[in-house]
């Protein structure tokens, strides 16, 4: 590691980075030519090039969003971002073939062990494209498609064309337009009718280069009566200049299908994490977002579900940890568009060392959606007097038969709880760590085992030095 990088990394646990070894790298800044070049380089069909160009023009004309902590977005310099970087010439399927420096980075994240244990498949995104990809044979036999998005477009253009941009169109917001224009990488999953993928399917994302924007695009389609659990995790090295992560995730759960999408993001504290995540649940389908936000400078992420079919269900569980200089502006949006749809939102946040965590939510019931039920619970813990916690919930009710509840509370760690644990022989720091882990427990119990363990370890690390 160079001295410059070492200095920048500081004490950030996963803040190591390897010297950049990319073979293709575009100049900084965005133009129609850059967009066309990305598309040409990937040998994409004409319709995708056209969508990219259209989205580019929309991005240039579109104003910054007004929903969220919009003042902070002024710090983004779109001209200082590299919109495409390819770190490895080909997509690898065998771990042994992955370049050594890239493998070293993944080794430190524990991917090989994780795979050996019980993962369904791994797509490790290193910079802009998938460099490592494997899928278990039983998934292939069941007809499940699990590819990186670029391969998905090459091998199954008819499916991608049918669903791409149907849940998050490029006109949705400025950042979805940007992503549509320059997207690269991400996952493409198609689960055929009636297939239940028992093991969670995973992908790791990393940013490695300075000012490297990461614009992955993920599309998951669960056909009728199928189910899948997809897990995505992020860590990134620390750099002194700002990085931009602007992904788009589209989930489509057909009749009776179930999709669970779990994320733990631990971007380093210089990354703008601006993600548009949205799922559509058709009749009797379920879409679940399990969303953990630990890192980044600013996260603006509001996983959304459109409950389009009767009896559809949405579940959003999210936790946020805001440390020094961080603003976690996260939440959930659920739109009840059909009768007898139900939703649950649970949000937990912790603010420490002057960090700011916000819950921003939208719960909408349209006039046609009779008999809907929804519950929103937001809990916030403040660990010191410099921190801040906000709650911005919105409830729009257009049907009189809807039954909705929202409750939120902000408090500090109770002195009684601390005293109880310390009287059992724990130090104040240990006691605080146990209380924080317990506070996040409704979230961690929904994660696959190794994610839960990693999250607990991360939280313990973050809590170090929090007392005194």
């Amino acid at each position, binding site marked *: 590691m160079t001295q410059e990088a070492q200095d920048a990394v500081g004490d950030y646990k996963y803040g190591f980075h390897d010297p950049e070894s990319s073979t293709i790298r575009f100049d900084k800044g965005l133009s129609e030519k850059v967009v066309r070049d990305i598309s040409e380089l990937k040998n994409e069909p004409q319709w995708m090039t056209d969508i990219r160009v259209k989205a580019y023009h929309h991005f240039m004309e579109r104003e910054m969003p007004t*929903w969220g902590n919009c003042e902070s977005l002024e710090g983004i310099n779109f001209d200082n971002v590299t919109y495409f970087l390819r770190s490895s010439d080909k997509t690898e399927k065998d771990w042994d073939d992955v370049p050594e420096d890239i493998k070293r980075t993944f080794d430190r994240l524990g991917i090989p062990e994780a795979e050996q244990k019980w993962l369904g498949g791994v797509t490790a995104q290193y910079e802009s494209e998938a460099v490592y990809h494997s899928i278990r044979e039983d998934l292939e036999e069941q007809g499940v498609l699990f590819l990186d998005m670029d391969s998905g477009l090459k091998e199954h253009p008819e499916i991608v064309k049918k669903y791409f941009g149907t849940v998050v169109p490029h006109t949705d917001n400025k950042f979805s337009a940007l992503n549509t224009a320059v997207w690269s990488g991400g996952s493409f999953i198609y689960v055929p009718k009636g297939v239940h993928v028992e093991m969670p399917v995973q992908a790791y994302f990393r940013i490695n280069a300075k000012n490297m924007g990461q614009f992955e695009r993920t599309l998951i389609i669960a056909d009728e009566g199928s189910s899948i659990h997809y897990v995505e995790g992020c860590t990134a090295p620390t750099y002194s200049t700002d990085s931009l992560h602007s992904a788009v995730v589209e989930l489509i759960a057909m009749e009776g299908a179930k999709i669970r999408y779990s994320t733990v993001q631990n971007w380093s504290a210089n990354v703008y994490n601006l993600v548009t995540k949205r799922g559509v649940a058709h009749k009797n389908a379920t879409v679940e977002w399990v969303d953990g936000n630990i890192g980044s400078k600013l996260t603006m992420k509001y996983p959304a579900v459109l409950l389009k079919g009767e009896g559809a269900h949405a579940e959003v569980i999210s936790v946020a940890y805001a440390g020094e200089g961080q603003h976690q502006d996260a939440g959930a949006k659920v739109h009840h568009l059909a009768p007898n749809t139900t939703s649950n939102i649970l949000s937990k946040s912790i603010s420490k060392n002057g960090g700011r965590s916000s819950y921003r939510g939208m719960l909408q019931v349209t006039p046609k959606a009779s008999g809907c039920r929804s519950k929103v619970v937001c809990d916030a813990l*403040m660990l010191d*007097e410099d921190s801040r916690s906000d709650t911005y919930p919105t409830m*729009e*009710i257009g049907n009189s038969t809807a039954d909705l509840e929202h409750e939120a509370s*902000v408090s500090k760690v109770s002195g009684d709880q601390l005293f109880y644990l310390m009287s059992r022989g724990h130090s104040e720091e240990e006691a605080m760590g146990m209380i924080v882990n317990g506070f996040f427990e409704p979230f961690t119990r929904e994660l696959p085992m190794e994610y839960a363990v990693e999250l607990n370890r991360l939280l313990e690390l973050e809590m170090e030095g929090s007392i005194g």
Partner: protein
Amino acid sequence: MTSYLDATLPSRSEHLWRYTPWSRVHPGSVDTIPTVDSAVVKSEELEIVNQPFQPLPSTDIARIFLNEVLTDTILVECDGKEGNIHIHAGGHAVATHLHISCKTTSNLVIHIHGEAEWFGLALTGHAQPNASLSVGIINELSTDSVMVRVDDWYVQRDGRLELATLSMGGHRNKSDIRSTLQGTNSSLKQFIGVHGHGTRHDDHHVEIQHQQPHTNSHLLLNAACDDRSHSIGTGALTIDDVAQHTDASQVFRNLLLSPSSRAEAIPELEVLANEVAAAHGAASAPINKEQLHYLMSRGLSNEEATSMIVEGFLVDTFTGLSSDYVRDAIQTRLTVHLECKLIG
């Protein structure tokens, strides 16, 4: 002072104007300042004094507009007294500014009635150190009126302020009620009861700012929405970093009575201090079928049972008022109104 014609019109992305844009509650075309007369203000029990106009803080478009059209401020002398103030709003466009300052204890009820097409009401007040002020506001404007209400209340050390609003009249109402807890150990209780009927559009925006330690605030908004009415409740509760040991709560409840009624609730919370108990809740539901069944099994018709539940829901809004005088006045007017509306 900012001039209205130079001021920028607010965008709908602003929290305050999200559901009721300024253009819908301005008395005419938004780029004009029409002639606005003074409303008639009377009181038998309290002394009211006309004074030169004391400008409102120019923080938003409604206050900037009222600063242009108001000509005087009516000072209410209420120390140690209780009584009623009647505001009659008649004519095309009328407005008034009431200022209430309380040093000891006072209970007063403001009744708003009349057929004005547009009525602008500015209420300002101070609960001075150790004072206890309880104010009830009953809106019984005609069903064609548009009302814009702006409030700025300040509570000082050991002061107590109770604000109760019963909103039943007017066709389109926009209320922006702001309170600041300026002194240590000050407290605010705010109760808002809304009965939506016909095509009423009733938008309450409530801002509460805790600036000092050991301050308390409690907000309850109950809205019963019938016919094609639309109720909006937005709250903005801020606890400053020095306001440790604060206890704050906001509750928004909507009872939806007809398929075409709508309700919005946005209780926002910004907390910058850590030694606090801050909570909010919002709920929206139709009439509980079990309650309806219970009452109907006792011989009541569906309409009678429904009206009884609605009455209970709205009357309950004000049970937390410590001033018997204000609570009785409000609950009496509410009962009379509901009997007229629901039973016919």
